[in-house]
């Protein structure tokens, strides 16, 4: 991001430089203070985040005559009008269909056999299951809901504390959107014009690293507490046979990555293929009822509408912030604080972490992702590296109290209070931050597969 050039020390026409102390900037600051107050009030009384973002935009529309109400309405719709976004409902539907098709049950059998002889076997199953199913699931919420319902009761039977099981389920659910497909990655690629195919490839190793770190920490914590000691009895089913059952789930991400990278289909078309792929297993296994299929479809509409309201509202709000030159102000302030790429990524990570305590990760990706992009690229950071770190940190917001959708989903199902959840989840948050630190320091983890 270039500084104000000396020939035009403070020209409002320059694309990237803001003029400190100018009248327009003071007004922009006053507006920002006002919307910050409005944000806190609306958040506290429980207005949904998408409607909060619309409210903030409406404040601008009413107070700044340059921002037209009709143009704002246009931006809300325009926020949904992109072909890559179709991947969002399609991958959600794939995950929903997978859970009723019988694939999930087979993968769980396999995961339980693999982890049977480990300390904390069922906890490890929980993580491994999230990892293996990640290739068919694009959102952490779906993964958390399913496992909170199926696995957590089993864990309780084996003596794990309920809050711990819930925290583990919520944290390991964050693996699902990192390993492709992932809705966060799609949205990030969409708003920053980064190749979604590259982001998918780049996030594979970070997703696996996240799984590994969670498993290592889980090993120590279950061993120390003597939860669920290793079971050395012979396996009920041969491992190879169980593996064949899990194969459909493991094959799908490979199919998707290969298909996208070789130009056979675009990410959204890959998603449509994934829906039909899962549909084939529903037809073959014949385990799902028509009622379950209806529920899966309806619930896809529900989740899509909820996510896309946030997206459309973010898009329109970002348009207003751009109109008001807020990104330039923020970018200038960030560059003023550090010019070291590592520190800049760490700063970005810290900002997302703090914002993520209160705001849905989707909104962060959509508003802050493109806002920080010119700053980090001006320091020579690779967009895929930045994207993977950004999306990883944005997902973390899903499990950090007081606001986090994955946390809400898991806690609602297992009936654990947010306070108990917070007490159980913080060591996992630290483990997660260790992964983030590794990704920041070693760009190759994110870029190696992306540029293969």
């Amino acid at each position, binding site marked *: 991001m270039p500084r104000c050039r000396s020939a035009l020390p403070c020209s409002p026409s320059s694309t990237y430089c803001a003029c400190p102390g100018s009248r327009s900037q003071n007004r922009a600051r006053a507006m920002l203070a006002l919307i910050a107050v409005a944000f806190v009030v609306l958040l*506290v*009384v429980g207005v949904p985040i998408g409607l909060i973002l619309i409210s903030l935009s409406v404040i601008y529309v009413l107070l700044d005559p340059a921002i037209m109400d009709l143009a704002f309405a246009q931006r809300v719709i325009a926020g949904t009008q992109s072909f890559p976004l179709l991947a969002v409902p399609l991958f959600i539907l794939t995950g929903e269909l997978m859970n009723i098709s019988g694939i999930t049950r087979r993968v769980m059998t396999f995961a339980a056999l693999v982890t049977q002889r480990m300390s904390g076997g069922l906890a490890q199953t929980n993580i491994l299951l999230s990892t293996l199913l990640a290739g068919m699931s694009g959102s952490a919420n779906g993964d958390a809901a399913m496992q909170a319902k199926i696995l957590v009761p089993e864990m309780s039977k084996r003596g794990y504390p309920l809050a711990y099981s819930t925290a583990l389920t919520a944290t390991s659910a964050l693996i699902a959107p990192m390993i492709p497909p992932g809705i966060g990655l799609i949205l990030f690629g969409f708003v920053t014009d980064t190749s979604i195919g590259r982001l998918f490839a780049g996030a594979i190793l970070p997703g696996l690293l996240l799984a590994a770190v969670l498993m290592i920490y889980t090993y120590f914590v279950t061993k120390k507490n003597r939860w669920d000691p290793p079971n050395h009895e012979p396996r009920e089913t041969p491992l190879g046979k169980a593996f064949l059952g899990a194969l459909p789930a493991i094959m799908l991400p490979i199919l998707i990555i290969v298909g996208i990278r070789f130009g056979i289909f675009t990410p959204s078309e890959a998603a449509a293929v994934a829906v039909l792929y899962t549909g084939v297993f529903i037809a073959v296994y014949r385990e799902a009822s028509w009622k379950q299929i209806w529920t899966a479809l309806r619930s896809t509409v529900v989740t899509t509408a*909820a996510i*896309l309201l946030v997206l459309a509202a973010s898009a329109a709000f970002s348009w207003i912030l751009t109109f008001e030159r807020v990104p330039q102000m923020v970018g200038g302030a960030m560059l003023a604080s550090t010019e070291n790429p590592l520190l800049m990524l760490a700063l970005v990570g810290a900002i997302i972490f703090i914002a993520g305590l209160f705001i849905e990760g989707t909104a962060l990706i959509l508003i802050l992702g493109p806002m920080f992009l010119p700053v980090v690229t001006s320091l020579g950071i690779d967009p895929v590296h930045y994207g993977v770190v950004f999306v990883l940190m944005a997902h973390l917001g899903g499990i950090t109290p007081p606001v986090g959708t994955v946390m809400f989903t898991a806690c609602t199902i297992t009936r654990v209070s947010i306070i108990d959840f917070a007490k159980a989840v913080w060591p996992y948050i630290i483990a997660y931050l260790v992964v983030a630190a590794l990704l920041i320091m070693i760009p190759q983890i994110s870029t190696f597969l992306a540029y293969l």
Partner: protein
Amino acid sequence: MTDVVPQTLVPPPTQGWSRALERAEFWIDRLVSVLTVGTLVFMVGLVFYAVVMRYVFSAPLVYSYDLSTMLFAWIVFVGLFVAERDGAHIGLDILYLIKSEGLRRAVIALRQVFMIALAAYMTYISTVLILRTGMQISSMRISARWLYASLPVGFALLTLIYLLRLPRLALAKQG
């Protein structure tokens, strides 16, 4: 989020008028669900059909991108009603910290009135946008009104569900 118990604070219907409102919500939800799910299935089919036509038959559909994104907007905005019904528009839920029952209800009712006003405002400006737009969807050579209409229809339905819930939030006895 199939499995999430709705986080809504709407009390279960115990009185007659409250049950009538719940029934109204139920039947509108039925209708809207069928329409949005049908559109979703059609959209999946269209995207897949476009892939097949392009790669297998080398006869690409010129309109497939614009038509599928237009259907997507309808699913999203009309789906807002279904999502609200399922309590999927999640916000911070800390009002239980207010100990006084009366005060808490007042705050919730006020919030509901605010959201009604907001949704009604969105319905209004997007209706005006429809009346004034001259934009065309180039691949299909139809007016952008076909797309834009999804916004007022969606927000009008959202206004409606908030209105149906207002009396129950403010007046109904907790079941």
